[in-house]
Structures are given as C-alpha cells and as structure tokens.
C-alpha cells in the first residue's frame, strides 16, 4: 500500500503512531535505509525537521533558497561564527542542496578505522556491492572533462601545468543541463537526490513521512527506546504549532546528521560515556579567489567536475587536504569575502571574472586531532565548537599557497586570499606574503559543507557511541545511520559513503525489529 508525506505543520490534532522502525532524518542515510526497510515489508515512519520542497519552488534565487533549504535559514555556524556551516534542511536533507560530487570511501580510511578505532567488518570488499547499488539508483557517473566550466578548468589546467594530480569527478545526475544551481535545489530534477529517488521509492511502498517535525527526544524505558517525541513546526516560520507527533517504534534510527543527531541524543540524556558530540569533523575549507582577464562566469556550469588529491597525504605529522572548486554566486561570494565598503564592492564588481578554489583539510586522522564538539545551547539548539589548532593552521597555510600556485599557473592576473585583511598575489614571488599571513579562527573565511562524526562507531563502548553494526552500545533498539558514525573525516566528499553505509545497514536494522 502506498504511503504518504504529511506536512505536520497543518496537523489539527496531535498524532501518535506505532511502527516497526522510526527513521529520524531524510537525507543520504535515512532515505536509503528507509527504502530498504519498506522493501523488506516493514512499516516505517520517517520524521524530517525541514519542509517538503520540490522543483516547483526552486527559483534559483539564493535569497529564497538558503532560508528554505538550509539549517538555521542558512545562518548555521560554529559558536564563534568562525566557520560557516552549509547543511541542508528539507526533505532530502543535504542531498537536496549538495554539489553532487560522489566518491567511494577510500580504502586507506577504512583501514584507518579498523586499525585505530576498532571498526570491524567494514572493508572495501564488503562495501563494494553497496556502492554499486547506490551508484545505479543515483546514476553516479564520471562527468566529462569537456563539460567542465571555466572555473573547474582553472583547477584542471593549473594542476596539469604544475604536474600535480587532478582527475574528473563523478556526479549523481541524470539529464543534467550543466546549469550550476545544484546548491539551491535542482530545478529540473536532474540531480538524483534522495528527494526524488529513495524517498519516493519508500513512500511508494508504504512509508509515512512527516515533514516539519523536530524530534525533540528519544524516550528510553527499561533500556529500550519506547518512543520518539516530536513537535510539529509551522511550514513558513518553523516555529512549533503546539501539535505533537509521537512515534512508538520497535526500532529507532537517528539519521539526523552529524550535528542535529548528536544534539538529539544529548537532549534525550543518552550520553552516558560522554562521547556523544565529540570528535566532530568538518573538512574545514579555506578559499582562494583569482581574478582572470577573461570572464570565468563561475556561477554557471556543474559546480564541481574536477578535483585534486595531490596533497591528501603530506606525511605523518601534517594534515592533508584536497582541492575542488565551488560555484560562485553573488551571495556566497559576498559572505566569503570578509571586507566591507568600497573594497568589498570592488571585489564583487569583478565577480564574473573570479575563479574560486577550495581546499578541504582532512581532519581527525592525526593523533590528537579531535576536531570539534556538538553540545547544547540552553534552549536545546545544537552548539558547535571547533577550535582551529596549529596543525590545521599549517594545513590552511599550505592549502592557500598551493591554490595560489595553481591559479597563477592557470593564468590568473591576481590571486586573493579571503583573509579579513586580504593578501594579494600577482606572481610566485609574492607567495611569501601568504606564508606570513595569520591563519586560524576569524582571520579568514572558513566554511564547511561536510559534517561528520559525533556518534562514532567503534569496538570500545568507552570511546564510541555505536558498534560496528551501527547499533547503540547500550540501547539495543537504537541505531545511528548517517555521517555522524564516521570515526574520522573521509578525505573525500562524504555523500556516497553515507548512501552505501545506509544500504549496508538495511539488513542490520531490519534484523533488530
């Protein structure tokens, strides 16, 4: 029997429902898992805090998209505002707004998890059929370099001139017209987000999805989850309507992501070992902007079609990084460039000629690199703290120098760092200026679109939250299936790892019902 999507903001009375599995969150983890559970004949209820928005509402205007489709109306950041956090909040989660780049989990990361964090049974051979399954459903395939926009060509050309590794990326798109608006909701459903794939798959087979419901607490009685208590939110204001949604499942799954998921567990008092919200990783991003004589028009074209992992392994003492490019739409660019007044106007006036490049630091692999922390504000909102230590500062510095060299090699007239006091580079002779610049929190733009960790999987209940089957160490009918279970960051864009992990987790969760 077909299920339904219920917009909870319009509920006229409280809702109470029993089911086999309640999945909290509709993104890369929750959607893939739920589709597999209904395939197995289970009754699934999904709760999603964001709204149900489809291509009809995607007008490609940043001013509408970010408040509609991103966490905290697009204002999510670390507590000190040093790191801007781009994270989706709607049916489909971050898959509705991500830039479509897909990687299988690197073998070296899986091996690190096994060796250092005691993760058992998750090797490449085990995951390969799950990668293959999600790649088929999501149409993940290599994007031809010939279709790369000029923004990506800078990374491609610059790396090749320097003799550095660079490769085409794979994207989850079908019938993509190369418009460049993945980050504000695909207007033609070319992006194979969970919004148009696994969610409709699951609803078609009977899943009930409540949108606009914030899961406030997971109630545990006699050592087992007894209910999920949610509040209905108004579709426009996102404020509680006063209606409540209570789900009584046999098994509960948190797929709320690496920030809201740990926050939910903390609100529920499920942190007996003090590990919930710890070791939160962000792939912290620094950005360089290059000015070219010819237009780059980086607002058009697939946002990411090439990438470089030339610097992913910089030796045992240093944090590695990888390189990609972002779309350069006016609002994103204006917030990343921290100046004001005339300086800011001058920068923005060159927007069509700007190439932007990003370096994503691979956090969590070195001993002592514990990333950040998710805790709670007094009102229950998640609070994210992420100290930028010396290792990361060194990575930022090396990243900025590497990006400047690529941009210069590709023919940039001038390269600018996005420091609060921007460093301007016109040739390699100027690179020492970048070396000497200050790095760290609130010295330059730092962003993240990859949130990981906070409910780490591992063998030791003292140092992790869930075991290697993603089951909570202490509560047998509670699972966590999303990027929060990563013991470290990945060194690649995380969506496909989450898809595949959720696909692998289907039998484990179903077996617990």
């Amino acid at each position: 029997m077909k299920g339904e999507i219920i917009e909870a903001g319009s509920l006229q009375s409280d809702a109470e429902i029993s089911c086999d599995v309640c999945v909290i969150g509709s993104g890369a983890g929750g959607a893939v898992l739920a589709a597999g559970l209904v395939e197995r004949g289970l009754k699934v209820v999904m709760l999603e805090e964001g709204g149900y928005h489809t291509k009809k509402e995607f007008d490609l205007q940043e001013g509408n998209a970010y408040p509609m489709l991103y966490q905290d109306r697009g204002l999510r950041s670390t507590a000190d505002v040093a790191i801007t956090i781009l994270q989706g909040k709607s049916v489909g989660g971050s898959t509705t707004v991500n830039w479509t780049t897909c990687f299988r989990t690197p073998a070296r990361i899986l091996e690190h998890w096994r060796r250092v964090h005691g993760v058992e049974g998750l090797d490449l051979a085990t995951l390969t059929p799950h990668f293959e399954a999600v790649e088929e459903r999501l149409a993940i395939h290599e994007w031809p370099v010939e279709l790369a926009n000029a923004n990506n060509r800078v990374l491609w050309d610059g790396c090749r001139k320097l003799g550095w590794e660079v490769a085409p990326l794979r994207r989850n798109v079908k019938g993509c017209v190369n418009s460049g608006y993945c980050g504000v909701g695909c207007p033609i459903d070319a992006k194979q987000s969970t919004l148009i794939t696994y969610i409709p798959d699951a609803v078609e087979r009977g899943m009930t999805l409540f949108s606009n419901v914030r899961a406030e607490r997971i109630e545990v009685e006699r050592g087992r989850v007894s209910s999920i208590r949610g509040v209905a939110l108004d579709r426009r204001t996102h404020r509680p309507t006063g209606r409540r949604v209570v789900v009584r499942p046999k098994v509960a799954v948190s797929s709320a992501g690496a920030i809201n998921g740990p926050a939910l567990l903390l609100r529920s008092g499920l942190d007996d070992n003090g590990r919930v919200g710890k070791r939160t990783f962000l792939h912290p991003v620094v950005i360089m902007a290059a000015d070219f004589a010819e237009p780059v028009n980086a607002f058009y074209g697939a946002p990411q079609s090439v990438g470089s992992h030339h610097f992913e392994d910089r030796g045992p003492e240093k944090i590695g990084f990888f390189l990609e490019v972002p779309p350069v739409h006016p609002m994103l660019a204006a917030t990343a460039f921290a100046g004001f007044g005339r300086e800011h106007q001058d920068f923005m006036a060159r927007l069509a000629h700007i190439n932007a490049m990003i370096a994503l630091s691979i956090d969590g692999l070195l001993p002592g690199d514990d990333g950040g922390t998710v805790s709670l504000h007094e009102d229950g909102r998640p609070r994210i703290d992420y100290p930028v230590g010396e290792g990361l500062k060194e990575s930022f510095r090396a990243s900025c120098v590497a990006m400047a060299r690529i941009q210069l090699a590709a023919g940039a007239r001038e390269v600018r760092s996005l420091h609060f006091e921007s460093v301007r580079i016109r040739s390699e002779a100027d690179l020492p200026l970048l070396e000497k610049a200050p790095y760290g929190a609130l010295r330059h733009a730092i962003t993240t679109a990859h949130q990981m960790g906070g409910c780490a999987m591992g063998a030791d209940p003292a140092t992790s939250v869930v075991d290697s089957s993603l089951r909570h160490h202490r509560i047998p009918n509670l699972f966590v299936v999303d990027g929060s279970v990563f013991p470290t960051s990945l060194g690649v864009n995380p969506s496909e790892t989450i898809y595949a992990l959720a696909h692998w987790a289907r039998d484990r969760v179903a077996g617990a019902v």
Partner: protein
Amino acid sequence: MSISRRTILKYGLGGALLLGAAGTGIALQRTRLRQPARPLRALDQRTFSILAAVADRITPGTHGFPSAATLEVPEKIDDLLSRAEPGLLDEMRQALLLVENGLAGLLFDGRPRPFTALSPEGQDAALRSMKESALPIRRTVYKALQGLCAAVYYASPEIYPLVGYPGPPDFGNLAAVGDRP
C-alpha cells in the same frame, strides 16, 4: 552565532568586560533611530536602527551601488530573523547592542559615542577596528553582521547587473544551457 554567557567566559576577561560594558552602558546612550519601511517582526526599533547603520557601511550606496537602505536590507534581515530560532535572534540583538555601545567603543576605539551617532567615516573606523581586533569576540560580532548584511544585499536581484551576473538561466530554453549527459 552565539554570545552566550558560557562563550563570554571562554573568551575571558576581555569578553566579560565587553558584556559588562554592554549591560551598563546601554542605558546611558541614545541611539539615532531610523524608521523601518514596514512594521518590524523580530527586532525592536533600536536594534533595527543599529542594524540599518551597520548595513549602510557594509554595503554603502556609492560607486553606482544602491545603499543597503534603498534595498531594504535591514527590513529583509528583520524578516529573516523572525523566521529563525528565537535563540539566534537574541544573539543578534546582543551583537547589535555591543556594536552600538559607547563605553565599549571608548575602551577599544577611543570613541565614546554610540555607533549610530558616528559619522560614516567614524562608523567605518569602528567596523575596521572590530574586524582587526585582537579580541576574538569582537571579530565574531563583525563577521556575524558583515555576513548577514552582505548576504542579504547581494542576494537582491537589483545587484546582479552591477556584479556581472545575468541571473539564473531561463529553463524554458534548456538547449541554450548545455548538454545533457
């Protein structure tokens, strides 16, 4: 953004001093009020006026660009905040009062007057001082306000031609956009 008591404690004496200055100094100062173009939904007139003054310096109406006020940037931010978590709104109010506070200005910039009472040049100097401050919390306040004002201003379609952005493509003409692999 968070300027909770816990955060202030983390930032130590400087942060505590700032918070104290904001608390005690506020009552002594008079903000130059501005009239919003429409009824406010989240901010009060005082914090709206401070925001409007900041926005007009972040994105001034010069060199062919319209002012933030012309684009009703502060009114749009007020609307956005009315749909954000209440805690976020509280933090934004605190940030604005910190910017306005003359005592904090005296301590850090040598300017005893409220931000809204300063000349445009004085306001620029105050913002620059925050941006370059050795105190992280002052840079936090700068970054929060700069980001919000710049985001709302440059999300305005009126600005697109000024930055060479033709705007989103017309999907009635898909063939013009690109190929379809």
